[in-house]
């Protein structure tokens, strides 16, 4: 594993040991973060699926109503009816922090809060199918905005989970084993050096004794 050249010194050993401790701690924290993110993501994505089903159903129903309305009206009068909307939707965008992921939070503001007051056309030249169509669409609007919020959150969280997972894997399978191998290499080398010195000293002692006393 020890592909890189490491200096077998005591200083390097201390440095690597510190690095290993940090890496292990970081790995544990990141792993916890990943697990919690995953749990929240799964809840969120289930909600996303439910909302999307509801919204898609609602929109296709509204579209059916619009087709009916356009069948009973000329396209000119339909365009004219839709030209000057009375209602306006503003969003206030806040943000919520889910495990260090900033997800958007929308607050909806309507210009005319009363839903009966939102029709922007006179009733004389339009068919009642159009009223149905518009009100069916307006019913689905809060869910649509909620869907936008949830779907965006899901995308952002999915990205963060992927990043965190990569980091966890890099620490677990590359960084930590490599550091461990390096530590082992250095401590073996230091031990070996120590033994070499020991033997050399013994040898020198023998030689000196031989010289002095003629053993």
């Amino acid at each position: 594993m020890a592909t890189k050249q490491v200096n077998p010194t005591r200083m390097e050993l201390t440095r690597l040991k510190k690095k290993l401790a940090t890496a292990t701690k970081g790995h544990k924290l990141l792993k916890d973060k990943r697990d919690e993110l995953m749990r929240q993501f799964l809840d969120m994505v289930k909600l996303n699926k439910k909302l999307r089903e509801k919204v898609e159903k609602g929109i296709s129903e509204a579209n059916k109503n619009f087709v009916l309305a356009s069948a009973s009206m000329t396209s000119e009068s339909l365009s004219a009816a839709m030209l000057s909307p009375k209602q306006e939707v503003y969003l206030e965008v806040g943000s919520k922090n889910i495990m260090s992921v900033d997800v958007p939070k929308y607050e909806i503001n309507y210009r005319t809060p009363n839903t009966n007051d939102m029709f922007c056309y006179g009733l004389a030249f339009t068919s009642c199918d159009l009223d149905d169509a518009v009100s069916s669409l307006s019913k689905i609007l809060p869910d649509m905005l909620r869907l936008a919020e949830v779907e965006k959150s899901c995308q952002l969280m999915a990205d963060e989970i992927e990043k965190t997972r990569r980091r966890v894997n890099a620490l677990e399978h590359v960084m930590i084993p490599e550091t461990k191998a390096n530590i082992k290499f250095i401590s073996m080398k230091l031990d070996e050096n120590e033994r070499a010195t020991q033997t050399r000293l013994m040898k020198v002692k023998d030689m000196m004794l031989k010289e002095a006393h003629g053993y």
Partner: protein
Amino acid sequence: MYRVAVLGDKESIYGFAALGLDVFFVSQGEDPEPIFKKLTQSDYAVIYITEQLASVLADEIAKFSYKPSPAIIQIPGVWGNTGKGMADVKKSVEKAVGSDIIFND
């Protein structure tokens, strides 16, 4: 104050105008890219886009999927539901989990 935009063909989205969303019509054969780019640079927090148009703009939309704003959400048009919106949700599950564990029923 942010606003909400809807991008698509006229038949699919004109109803949203009555609700006070800003609608932008893209007719058949027109290149939707410049108008989409303009929308992403303006004050729109949410951009709804029909699935038909989204399949044309897939590359552009992908650029925004991991930015905090704007949220680009696909909706079915008047021509029916292609299931592309759901497929994108599925894709983000696959990205996060590694395999699809929500939609396989």
